[in-house]
């Protein structure tokens, strides 16, 4: 199993992601520069957080049209695994690999804090080490994480089981207070139709070691490691 982390100019979370992947997969990921187009041999492509291309025009808009993204889209079309976190999620929506868009946080503030996420289903390669309905803590750090899509798309995502995570309180309940950035239906992460592309705003990669304050995010990477080694 080989993972690659796509590095765009302005990205700043690729090292956190590399540490999490190496710690859980037992193998260091390949760092892929945004001009590269040969991704052969990589099973999982990760788009990390940061501010690609300075977030000019819209968050993720420039990165979505960079040379590497054609190869990422081809990888996804072949049924390859893709994980986009934070800016990576924004890039996946801008590239059309996931539906919807991320708007400015409803409260306009950049939110740098922990949040609680509920695992909506535990039968995907990303979530098998959790139980459905389980709640975990994850750091968030974003100004544009307010997920939106038209009502038909939201209904389709829910009907097809494509909501991966929702913002909840510590008891797993959704509420306006727990939905920190105002996302439609408290959606924090969504899957592609084959559940092999996942985008989410919070950062599970930053809670994978007790030294970092907890291991709440570790099941995401352990799930991937288990699925891709098998």
């Amino acid at each position, binding site marked *: 199993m080989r993972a690659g982390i796509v590095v765009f100019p302005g990205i700043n979370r690729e090292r956190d992601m590399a540490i999490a992947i190496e710690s859980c997969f037992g193998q260091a990921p390949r760092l892929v520069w945004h001009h590269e187009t040969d991704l052969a041999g990589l099973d999982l492509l990760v788009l990390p957080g940061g501010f690609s291309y300075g977030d000019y*025009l819209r968050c993720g808009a420039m990165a979505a049209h960079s040379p590497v993204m054609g190869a990422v889209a081809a990888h996804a079309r072949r049924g390859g695994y893709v994980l986009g976190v934070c800016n990576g999620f924004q890039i996946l929506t801008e590239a059309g690999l996931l539906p919807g*868009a991320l*708007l400015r946080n409803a409260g306009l503030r950049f939110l740098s804090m922990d949040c609680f996420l509920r695992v909506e289903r535990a039968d995907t390669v990303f979530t098998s080490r959790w139980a459905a309905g389980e709640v975990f803590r994850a750091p968030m750090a974003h100004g544009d994480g307010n997920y939106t899509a038209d009502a038909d798309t939201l209904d389709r995502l829910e009907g097809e089981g494509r909501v991966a995570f929702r913002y909840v309180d510590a008891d797993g309940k959704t509420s306006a207070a727990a939905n920190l950035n105002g996302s439609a239906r408290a959606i924090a992460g969504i899957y592609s139709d084959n559940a092999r592309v996942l985008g989410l705003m919070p950062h599970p990669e930053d809670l994978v070691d007790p030294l970092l304050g907890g291991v709440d995010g570790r099941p995401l990477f352990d799930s991937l490691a288990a699925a891709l080694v098998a």
Partner: protein
Amino acid sequence: MKVAVTVMLKDGVLDPQGRAIGQALTTLGFGGIGEVRAGKLIELELAETDPERARARATEMARRLLANPVIESFSVHIPTEA
């Protein structure tokens, strides 16, 4: 030839920035302010002399990059020379 593309959040998409601007204007004492919406104006200098072709190219650019059709709408116009 200069072409201007105006990009706005679609009607119905929450515009917290516009709302904050409206609140700030009210705080400054400007009364009677209804909804405020904020957008972007992108000016393109194109190597075209035919306005219709320039408009068509800018429209294609807006569709592919300048606007995100999920959340934004756009309009293209050719500014008249002063």
